[in-house]
């Protein structure tokens, strides 16, 4: 399997630049997810890797070959499209055989490959059916089967689950993960769904406005977002963010926000930064109902409780800012109605520069 290397990749449509010189190194057999909001350039980047879009500037390498001027068919990549791109007039077997027939692979080899892949994907009994006679999940599997039979060096997935309902999406997500483990093919996966990104990726690339905001493992991105954009994008519900001013105290630096004092323990880098305007970030999952030694107390006014079963979302206000907390219910939510303060461990509090939005050095 080959790695994929993007060096200063730029995409321009006329005078408009939509991808601004991104650098990315995808290791062989790695599963990398490009995630970001609509229009951030993630699909364009994927299409440049596939050869469906010309690269305006920079170098794309797959393995050790520069691919900028190589035709899509010669890049040894296979792509799964958002709407599956199944040929409506061909049955499942013929859809899967399409790429192999174009490449003039001997018939018996084609039949063998299809048989093998159909077994892996549970499509054996549907081989004679046309796409119109299949469910969304089955079509999605055929689209993946078509990519797998080619035994490519790199799989490219362009939001392949976005047309499925929530239940099927979860199911297919697990199937993709299992397939990747089994086949070990380098995969680049585009999605705007951060849950998909978190669950599938070895590494996530968060993109915004044609730039890479952060690259890291799901837990790196979750625990140490590089900026307010990543902090807001990764995690569901997103990280609570509100403005604060740093102050020095004998116990160490604190952040003052709407009259609330939040202890920032273990953040030596902040000493002497009194008066600095910052954004405080606290993940809803990191909030506790009960105080523990060393935790900071955040007085809240409770607006609404959303019950999720084993967990509940508390929609609250801290001063004028909205604040969401995700707490365990233990099968009971009655006790949540009287909550008027939440608690957070100082090391869970993230700080970002108010002007640049970048994370300020802090203990993890």
């Amino acid at each position, binding site marked *: 399997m080959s790695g994929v290397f993007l060096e200063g990749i730029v995409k321009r449509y006329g005078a408009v630049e939509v991808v601004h010189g991104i650098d990315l190194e995808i290791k062989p057999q790695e599963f990398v997810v490009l995630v970001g909001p609509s229009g951030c350039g993630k699909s364009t980047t994927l299409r440049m890797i596939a*050869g*469906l879009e010309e690269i305006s500037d920079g170098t794309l390498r797959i393995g050790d070959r520069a691919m900028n001027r190589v035709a*899509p068919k010669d890049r040894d990549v296979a792509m799964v499209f958002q709407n599956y*791109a199944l040929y*409506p007039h061909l049955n499942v077997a013929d859809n899967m055989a*399409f790429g192999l027939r*174009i490449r003039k692979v001997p018939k018996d080899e084609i039949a063998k490959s299809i048989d093998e892949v159909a077994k892996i994907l549970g499509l054996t009994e549907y081989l004679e059916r046309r796409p119109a006679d299949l469910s969304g999940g089955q079509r999605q599997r055929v689209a993946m089967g078509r990519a797998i039979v080619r035994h490519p060096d790199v799989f490219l997935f362009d939001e392949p689950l976005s047309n499925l309902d929530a239940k099927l999406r979860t199911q297919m997500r697990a199937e993709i993960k299992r397939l990747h483990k089994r086949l070990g093919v380098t995969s680049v996966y585009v999605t705007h769904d951060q849950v998909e990104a978190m669950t599938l990726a070895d590494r996530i690339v968060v993109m915004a406005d044609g730039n890479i905001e952060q690259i890291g493992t799901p837990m790196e991105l979750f625990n140490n977002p590089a900026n307010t954009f990543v902090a807001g994008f990764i995690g569901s519900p997103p990280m609570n963010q509100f403005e604060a001013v740093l102050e020095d105290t004998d116990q160490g630096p604190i952040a003052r926000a709407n009259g609330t004092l939040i202890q920032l323990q273990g953040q030596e880098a902040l000493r002497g930064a009194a008066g600095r305007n910052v954004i405080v970030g606290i993940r809803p999952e990191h909030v506790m109902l009960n105080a523990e030694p060393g935790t900071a107390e955040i007085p809240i006014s409770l607006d609404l409780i959303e019950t999720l079963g084993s967990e509940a979302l508390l929609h609250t206000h801290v001063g004028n800012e909205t604040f969401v907390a995700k707490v365990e219910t233990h099968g009971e939510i009655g006790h949540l109605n009287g909550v008027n303060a939440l608690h957070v461990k100082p090391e869970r509090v993230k700080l970002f520069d108010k002007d640049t939005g970048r994370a300020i050095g802090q203990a993890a």
Partner: protein
Amino acid sequence: MAMVDKESSAGTETIVPKLTIAQRLDRIQMHLKQEWQIYAMLAPLVIWFLLFNYRPMYGLQIAFKDYSVFLGIEGSPWIGFEHFETLFQSDQFVRAFKNTIIISLLSLFIGFPMPIILALMFNEILSETYKRTAQTIVYLPHFISSVIIAGIIITAFSPSAGIVNTFLGWFGVEPIYFLTKPEWFRPIFIGAGIWQEAGFQSIVFLAAIAGVNPSLYESAVVDGANRWQMMWKITIPCILPTIIIMLIIRIGNLLEVSFEMIILLYQPATYQTADVINTFIYRQGLVGGQYDVAAAAGLFNAVMAFVLVMSANAIAKRVSRTSLW
């Protein structure tokens, strides 16, 4: 107790309750009450059909009567199939029927694929300016009146100053009186029809091509298909339902040979190959005043067209899963 029907689709089985007549009427009444605006909008078209397509059918009965304008439709006596017998014994009608079939089939086999080929060619043109110019040029003849087209053809094939004979003259060919020679009528007529309509008819196929999911092509590109393979393996199969629908419509109109163009181009010297059922009806009915015989010929034409369109639809449904109804 409500009866139930089992209905299966895409492998699933749903149970549909069977309604009583009273329930059905109730449902229709409720539907009309809710959607009356849609039916109000539909009404003018329905009225138009009733007045101009269904009401004239009343007059078809003169095909079975010895019609007299003085006695009227009601007063004229019934004579059964006498006019049909007359028609089938008439050499002129048999000739017209034979010509209609030959011209129609030739038009179908040569003329029907032309707009498809044109649409596929337009689809392959990469330069937008060139594409638009080429499209405008081939669409234009459709907007020219048949009389002018006939004038152009008569001038172009004129033995004295026509461009065709002038061109042939350069190679030492003696002037040919194309429009008076029966063997030349069909090629000229069919060629003119293609020249006039192929471009405009290609719009339907171009629209169908535009509706093909672009990611099918992208997927094929990644799979390694070239443009020729994409045309054969994606474009044509994807527009096949449109091709079949257009073919069924065309077959339904198979016997409706372009009447005015034939009237404008034919002459007694070319009747042998040019006279078709419609021109026969025109001469019998309007020129000869035999309205009843003309009505019989017209009815025969309509019944044949009906049989053709039903058969074509049934075949298409069986072969390709696509049909008009």
